[in-house]
């Protein structure tokens, strides 16, 4: 889910056309434009775009 807006311990994230508010207290530094892994309303991890490409490149 992509971060659109930050508001303290929460962030507005977008997935498809859905916008949701998720808690980001478990992550050290969240920026607008980051992609987050969300579990039950909490961001539990950040997606590393470079590593995602690496994984795909292994098969290409």
């Amino acid at each position: 889910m992509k971060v659109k807006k930050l508001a303290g311990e929460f962030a507005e994230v977008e997935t498809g056309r859905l916008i949701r508010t998720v808690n980001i207290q478990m992550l050290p530094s969240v920026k607008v434009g980051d992609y987050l892994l969300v579990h039950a309303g909490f961001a539990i991890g950040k997606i590393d775009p470079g590593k995602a490409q690496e994984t795909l490149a292994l098969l290409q």
Partner: protein
Amino acid sequence: MKYIDEFRRKDLARKAAEKIHEAMVPRQVRIMEVCGTHTQSFHRFGLANLLPAQLHMLSGPGCPVCVSTQRYIDQAITLAKHKEVILLTFGDMLRVPGTHSNLEKERAQGARVQILYSALESLAIAHAHPDKKIIFLAVGFETTAPTIALTMIRTREQRVKNLFFLTSLKTMPPALQYLVSDARLNVDGLLLPGHVSSIIGMNPYAFIPKEHKIPCCIAGFEPLDILEGILSILQQIRRSKPCVANQYVRVVRRQGNPRAQKIIARVFRRCDAEWRGLGNIPKSGLRITQDFFDFDAEKVFPVIEKGKKLARHTQCRCGDVLKGLVLPKECRLFAKACTPDHPIGPCMVSYEGACNAYFKYR
């Protein structure tokens, strides 16, 4: 959607499958997907059709609802019967059978049971009903534990006095230790849970290849993730070099999420825990620390029956399914007496349950 669609690409999935066929060894290979979400994804995308016939996937104990004990459900039902209580739960707990009833039946008879998506919603409900006692059924693994812990910390910060937690939180590595020590299991590789690993990291699994010589790979949940995970395990088998590989590098770091680990440690301590089907596993549970006893439903509501164990006799084989000893279709009740509409065992209830996945995508 970004980071989802790319990992569902058909052309790449075919390539991955080709590589799996090339890497396959000339014998039967049994790989356990530990996590229920892997089971769902594997069947939903029909990945079995792409794999060699001699490669078998087994489901493991990674469905939190499935491993919750009957006693836990009975405790929840006891609490739900009280007029001043509103019970909050994740959706798939509703139809898990207790000894005589389940939460769905209790709700039909007037108990207040509400479904939540996130633990955080419990705070708003507690604020809206100051005259009620709100009890949240906190069930899950390491992925859910920090969300419960943070909710408890926020409950304290906001001085909310009517929100309590009946916890049945469990940790994955001790359960894996129990499984791989069972000689009957006989697995050639473990596909390890991606989201649990995003919290705990890679090190807690190190004993599996080291002491038990079983290849492991942490994998994400999209089709390409699962196929690459299987490929990694086959390559480890070929080279006879078992290790903990990490396919889900875009999310899982070696050290996991240290902040989440700290949050868990602030609110919970390790304890022995009972797993449905598996029995008591040392140090596999999380209980609330003394500092947070005010929010612990077990401490606050002594009405809960302790230790009373009533056997419920059915031919359900969920216990063996969770241990990877039988496939769901080997259970006599599967798709006959036991269906998602009329579940007899928990593995048929939950979205993450193996029987549910096998039934839906038969």
